[in-house]
């Protein structure tokens, strides 16, 4: 019925050992906990391990790039969120939980607080709400850099979006998976886990 059930029980004999080739027992993910061996695939885990930091860096690039080209806090946050989605699919929710200690609602709230504080901060200098300031810093021969305070607003959006995605993973991903386990619909855990 569910996608994860169809995989391991399909074949026997040679076919089964061939199917197991992609099921590692070592510690491939960054953390120590490993999910059920029959839920793992080598290719996905290696890809996740390689891609996760790269995608995160790319998301930060998108966040900073937003002022000059396509990108911004929203897109950056979504990309970072998708990195976590990849981790979740490859390593399961235990992996995600142990890697990421801040609880999603906290992240969402922090993002909103940063955004609202950025919005209110100009009042302290007598400017209207949401006013932004631009500083231009020159680095001699390397050119110059524009620093805009509205970037902070974007950072707030970025954190909030990551939090939203993680919250979705927590509720729809882990939550539903655990419901399924408790209802006895998944294969039993613990057989051969590392």
């Amino acid at each position, binding site marked *: 019925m*569910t996608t994860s059930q169809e995989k391991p029980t399909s074949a026997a004999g040679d076919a089964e050992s061939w199917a197991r080739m992609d099921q590692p027992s070592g510690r491939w993910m960054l953390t120590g906990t490993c999910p059920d061996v029959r839920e793992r695939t080598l290719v996905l885990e290696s890809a996740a391990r390689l891609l996760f930091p790269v995608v995160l860096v790319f998301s930060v690039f998108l966040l900073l790039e937003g002022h000059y080209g396509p990108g911004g806090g929203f897109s950056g946050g*979504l990309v970072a969120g998708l990195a976590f989605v990849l981790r979740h699919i490859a390593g399961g929710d235990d992996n995600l939980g142990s890697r990421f200690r801040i609880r999603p609602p906290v992240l969402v709230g922090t993002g*909103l607080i940063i955004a609202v504080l950025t919005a209110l901060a100009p009042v302290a200098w007598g400017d209207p709400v*949401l006013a*932004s300031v631009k500083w231009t810093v020159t680095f001699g021969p390397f050119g110059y850099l524009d620093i805009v305070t*509205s970037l902070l607003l*974007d950072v707030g959006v970025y954190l*909030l979006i990551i939090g939203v995605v993680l919250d979705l993973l927590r509720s729809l991903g882990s*939550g*539903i998976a655990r419901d399924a386990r408790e209802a006895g619909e998944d294969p039993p855990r613990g057989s051969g886990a590392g």
Partner: protein
Amino acid sequence: MLAVVAAHLVLALCLPALARYHRRLAFGAGAALLAATLVWTMAQASTALSGGVTDRIEWAPELGLTLSLRMDALAIAMIVLVSGVGALIMIYAAWYFGPRSTDAARSAALLVAFAGMMLGLVLADDLLTLYVFWELTSLTSFLLVGQGGQYRENRRAAVQALVVTVFGGLAMLLGIVLLGQLAGTYSIPEITAAATSGTLAPDSPVALSVSLVLILLGALTKSAQLPFHPWLPYAMAAPTPISAYLHAASMVKAGVVLVARLGPAFSVHPVWWAPVMVLGLATMVLGGWRAMRQTDLKRLLAFGTVSQLGFLMVLFGAGSRVAGLAGIAMLLAHGLFKAPLFMVVGAIDKACGTRDLRELCGLGRRRRGLAVIAALAGLSMAGLPPMLGFVGKEAAFEAFVLEGGVRGWVTAIGLVLGSLLTVAYTARFLWGAFSTKGLHPTGGDPVPLGLSGPAWLCALTGIAAGFAAPLVQQLAASYAASLPPVGDAYAARYELALWHTPGLPLLFTGVALVGGLLLHRYGQPLTGHLSVPHVSAQRGYEAVVTGLERSAIAVTGRLQIGSLPVYLGCILATLIALPGPVIAVTGTWPTDQAPYHSIMQVPVGLMVIIAAIALCLAHRRFTAVLLVGAVGYGIGGLFVIDGAPDLALAQFLVETLTLVAFVFVLRRLPAHFDEPDTERRVRGPKAAVAAVGGLLVAGMAVMLSGARTLPPATTEPFIAGAPEAGATNLISAILVDFRALDTVGEITVLLICASGTASLVLATRYDKRQNGKVVRSGSGSPKHEKEVLG
């Protein structure tokens, strides 16, 4: 003045902590602040009476919102009640709430907050400022009447008071906005000036009438006028100090104050004075009549308040100088006699454990002090010399005798009837509380000075004010100066005084006294049987509330049936029914429609169309989700082709995330949609609604995109301002700079969505975490429910 109002709120914030430390100190601090406010007001009184003291803060100048306060005669009269009587009631409350009372801390804070709101209300010089304080008093009163919410009676009374007064308040807001639009200002003096000079909306009398009726609706509900009166007697479920303060001395006067404020401007309009005077008279008589039949002393007084409020409405609605004088005198008199009467009832309640006049016996001999206070206050309530109540009532009779005509005489006779009933229920109160009725005597406990002292002060002030009629005259004359002297030359120079030459008013007082005493002595069978049980405003209120609940249940039961197709169908049907015909009739098809702008649009567009058609034919949920994804990516591709990389990026990312979320959810859903057999019956209508909805949206998209004939007005300044905002990417500049407020709003919506999803999915589970580890996890068990609900 704003600082004084704010001081009340600040103190109210501190009081709960103080009350936990020392209960009486908290009430004492409240009383001190109220007394200080009174002293401060008196110090400014002479300036206020000559020209008025004003205080303004521009709140949102673009919207014409101003916090504007002004102290004048009417405000001073009300502050005497709100702060002066309020301070005495705070002292009374310190002794009334027992040492272990959990309500004391909350009540002290709320009473002080309420005093601040009421102060703002009576000082308000701007209709919107007035409205804000008006609703705040309703809310504070709700909290005060509801108390801790433990008792059903309190809850019901609080809800009824809130529903009725807020209903009126909302109607009033409509009226205020309408009036403000007609006058071009919300400032009360400007509106009054425009109305008296006849320049206020001369060409739209209907709109003016509508706005006046709506504003009156607020005043009538707040001041418990017929047919909105039942909430006030029910609100007597609150502890006595709160009843005495809110429902005798201050809050219910708000409606009267509003009528008095706007009276000088509008009392020539029949649409203003007719409802006020007719309902006021009816309320005065009905309240008096109902008071005659009460056995609970507090409810007897409450109906007395209803009756007196009707009296005040008549006086301020009449719009003549003498009536205005009488109105101010009665306003003061009512606060000064009703508060001590309530305090006496509270003391009786404490000493005897009952307020039922059928159970009280012999209290007059045993608690002589209370009896004297009640007698003094009762004399004023009955309108007998030498009390302030007598001064006011004489002036009231005089006003309508001088006015003459049908309106004057009908009102005068109505007032005599009302006063007669007032005398009768005063007698009933005194007899019921203090007489020896042949039962076993009640009331052994002595009354502490904290309970009787404030009542003494209040009642004695009532006499003092009667003798000091010239002082009251000064205050009242300042208010009444703005009203026309209706009647002969005598009306123009009439003054409040303890003694005038004997005439019709004195005769009326005599008739009321003798009639009232006779009614009390011999009227028991009359008042007992001649009741009107079939027409009850309370039953009307209950019918309205039940009807609302029933219709809400009926509507919800028909719409929220738990079927996703039905919900979607409702939304689509609304879309088709409301904008559909408008588009079909008024829409014009743009003439310059090219089949495509770039050749790349053709294959991508075809892919979207094919995916959409295949989606309708899909039987497996997973296939359907993938096809939805294909449609989304196709649209993203169209964005790329049209040169919108920002949109495309966001579209691709959101589409990916949606797919992932769908797949997560799909694990717990059946692989296939419902069997075709079961839905064949409804397939036709579904397909029709979906097809029409889709065509409508597509048509709308084309028409609206062709509707613009001029270059867009908003983008130019955005493009010009982008370098200043430090962005070479215009989209980003718009998102985080020009329209950053929208962005903040949108991410707030995202936060709400995330919490909502998490709540829906995780609602049945509760993990108790310790150091980041789950120590206990339930799954919807009853025990777990208890943990979640606390």
